[in-house]
């Protein structure tokens, strides 16, 4: 095996009482792609933040190229040849690619010499690694995949030999992800070392040489990728066996419950986000909406659930129209049997500062069951919360615990329990398993299918193609605000990927 590029020895890190990293040992060989997988909160990001100088380890040693180093700031990391591509890009939107690349690395008071130098350097980097980006393009006009390449360029420009990528494919289409992987392989061939943090096991299998699994702050295993399987990794991550694809029977679609006709939604700037979209959801079926994030799915969900104003079109719930002026009372829609699990559970679906029991009535707090006159019926609310905790196996089973202290999966279960237990006729779910651990995904998928089997209409929007394919009875693909195709559950990933990328090579099949 090649010499180690990075060695982490006995790293410990606590935040107050939470031990985010315990005795982590990790060795990344030079010139390899090393994957780190783990559920949310397993400590992956903390570990990489220690390596990149955002946090200091409480104890332990970092060696880069065999030499012990101390990394106190990201500048230290950069000086050691470590570069990081964050999940959320750190780019100035209205600067050009070139300006972003030299940002923080300007050599003079005047920009001219830096720019000239950077231009030729960028030229070289782009040729060497196949990173085609126009240096004079303005960031906000570039698609996400290209913005990510700018982040990679930034790191390379600063002389990175070791590149850390944090969940790089979350925002990419399958085609863009493939391109990214080609770039990463090219970088590897040139001798760079790459650390890839992700929770998508398929990517790990596709591209890495070795993979390390983290669980609850500890490093539980390191495997050579060729000698492991997705099943084994999932098991290591969760600590028990998991079903990766949920079994489900044939759907028995009934009457149309939710009908969307020629819906058009614009955002605050007047940009058309949803463009003349029409579809039906019948009782007893799950309709999945696939698409890369930002193609109008969020706005579609918000319009249907009465939160966002729609410019034109109509939405019928059980044959009766929904007020689309943006002034609809979501409470009234709930009474009519529309339950909504929003995409953003941290700011919309939950109040993180609330106790669990308080969140278990959010949106239903007008319900007589939870009230005694103007007062909250605390006993009833607690009993109800305990009941849901038991039914949905929410852990820890403490309705008085602050919601922020639950893991992502359990937070999502709190929302799902609340919405599903109201026994709605129509359930719309945005990103049912975003940031949710593998174990909880299985549970949530089973619940959604159980809803379907009870004859409810379920609309699922997700950027996870696997999820859409595993859940849906029909798949709609959204691109640039329009539904560009409808497919059955047996559609191939490649076919859907092309649609998601906006390549319409055939008319939408009915």
């Amino acid at each position: 095996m090649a010499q180690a590029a990075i060695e982490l020895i006995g790293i410990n890190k606590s935040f107050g009482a939470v031990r985010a990293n315990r005795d982590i040992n990790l060795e990344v060989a030079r010139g390899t792609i090393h994957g780190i997988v783990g559920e949310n909160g397993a400590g992956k990001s903390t570990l990489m933040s220690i390596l990149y100088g955002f946090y200091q380890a409480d104890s332990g040693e970092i060696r880069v190229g065999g030499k012990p180093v101390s990394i106190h700031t990201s500048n230290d990391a950069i000086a050691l040849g470590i570069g990081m591509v964050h999940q959320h890009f750190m780019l100035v939107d209205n600067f050009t690619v070139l300006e972003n690349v030299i940002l923080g690395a300007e050599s003079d008071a005047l920009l001219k010499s830096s720019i000239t130098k950077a231009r030729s350097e960028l030229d070289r980097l782009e040729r060497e690694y196949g990173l085609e980006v126009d240096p004079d393009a303005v960031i906000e006009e570039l698609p996400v995949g290209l913005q990510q390449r700018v982040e990679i360029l930034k790191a390379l420009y600063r002389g990175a030999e070791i590149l850390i990528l944090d969940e790089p494919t979350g925002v990419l289409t399958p085609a863009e992800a493939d391109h990214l992987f080609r770039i990463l392989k090219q970088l590897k061939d040139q001798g760079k070392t790459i650390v890839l943090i992700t929770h998508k096991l398929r990517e790990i299998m596709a591209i890495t040489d070795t993979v390390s699994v983290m669980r609850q702050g500890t490093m539980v295993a390191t495997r050579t990728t060729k000698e492991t399987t997705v099943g084994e990794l999932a098991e290591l991550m969760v600590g028990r066996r998991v079903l990766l694809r949920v079994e489900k029977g044939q759907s028995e679609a009934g009457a149309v419950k939710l009908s969307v006709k020629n819906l058009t939604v614009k955002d605050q700037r007047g940009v058309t986000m949803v463009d003349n979209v029409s579809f039906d959801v019948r009782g007893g079926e799950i309709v999945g909406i696939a698409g890369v994030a930002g193609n109008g799915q969020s706005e579609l969900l918000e319009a249907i659930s009465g939160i966002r104003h729609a410019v034109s079109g109509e939405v019928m719930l059980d044959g009766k129209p929904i007020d689309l002026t943006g002034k609809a009372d979501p409470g009234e829609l709930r009474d009519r049997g529309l339950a909504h699990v929003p995409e953003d559970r941290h700011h919309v679906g939950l109040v993180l500062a609330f106790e669990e029991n308080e969140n278990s009535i959010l949106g239903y707090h007008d319900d007589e069951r939870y009230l005694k006159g103007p007062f909250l019926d605390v006993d009833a609310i607690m009993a109800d919360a305990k009941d849901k905790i038991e039914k949905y196996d929410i852990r820890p089973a403490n309705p008085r615990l602050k919601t922020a202290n639950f893991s992502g999966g359990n937070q999502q279960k709190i929302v799902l329990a609340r919405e599903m237990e109201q026994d709605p006729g129509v359930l719309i779910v945005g990103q049912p398993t975003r940031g949710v651990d593998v174990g909880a995904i299985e549970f949530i998928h089973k619940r959604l299918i159980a809803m379907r089997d009870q004859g409810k209409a379920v609309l699922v929007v997700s950027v996870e193609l696997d999820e859409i394919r595993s859940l849906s009875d029909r798949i709609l693909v959204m691109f640039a605000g329009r539904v560009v195709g409808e497919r059955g559950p047996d559609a191939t990933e490649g076919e859907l990927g092309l649609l998601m990328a906006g390549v319409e090579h055939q008319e939408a099949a009915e």
Partner: protein
Amino acid sequence: MSTPYAKLPAWADYGLIPLINLSVAFIVAGFVVMLVGENPFRAAVILVEGAFGRGTGIAFTLFYATTFIFTGLSVAVAAHCSLFNIGTEGQAYIGGLGIALVCLSLDSVMPWWVIFPIAIVAAAAFGALWGLIPAYLQAKRGSHIVITTIMFNFIAASVMVYLLVGALKPAGSQAPQTRNFLAGAELPKLNWVIELFGAKIRSAPLNICFLLALVMAFLVWLLIWRTRLGYEMRTYGHSPKAARYAGISETRIIITAMMISGALAGMMALNPVMGDQHNVAIDFVSGAGYVGIAVALMGRLHPVGIVLAAILFGMLYQGGAELAFEMPAISRDMIVIIQGLVILFAGALEHMFRPYIQALFASVSPKSVGMQAVKGTGA
């Protein structure tokens, strides 16, 4: 990685940390006292004795505390709805106008126990109305509540000056204030309660408004944590998007919260106006509204904390006055510096010592900080 810091047990959160912050504030204040050449220990003794040493001192401390409880509650109610009501000062001032109108017209014909409830309603209504306009502008026009409430403080001050040198001033009087109320508008004192414990009181303004303040503190607790309205206010306060999702009307909740906040501010005027001065004079609020902000923050927006913080500030007011009297080198401004330090350490730098305390707790007793509860066990 949901919370950077683990939870502390409640007694440490609400008791130990404020105590540490307060101690640091007093230590720094001690250095300031040393700097002007006085003995900080003697100063501390004078301050505490002035506030709690004699019956009269206690009565004055509680009198000031009463005022701060009202303004602190006012700020807290709005803050739970994430509205930073800086207009407590003006709302209290206008509340005084409501009281003046009631007292001036009824004090010759009715006893205090009839006038008092009417005056409470008037004070609350006037304060609430003064909160309504900024609230409406915020809810409907998006005008920031901080800006509008500050401006409304100035408007209130000008309106009151206009009235107190004009319509409300008795003819021929040189002072910009209303005539003194008759006995019918004077509230009973509570000094006898302190005298029950054997202390002597010469003359102090502590009156039944103190009891009213405690009742309001309880009602505010009830409102915030036990009613549907309070639930909606807190939801909006933590996350307007979640409130929208839950079907809570933004306009309604902003206006309601600000009117309740304004009502509590207005009721503050009862204490100095009916309990002490027996008239409405220019600038009778004298900054109590702004102190309310510090009291609310220090009390962590909880009524119990607010009552305690109000007593602390009452102590600083009363003991500070004694201190300025006893130690000539320490002027009134020095007292303001000490108050400022308390606000700085207990309010603004509230979380400075928290990480250390938490680390200490975690190493001594991991269970007490809920280690096992923080990370969900998979599922």
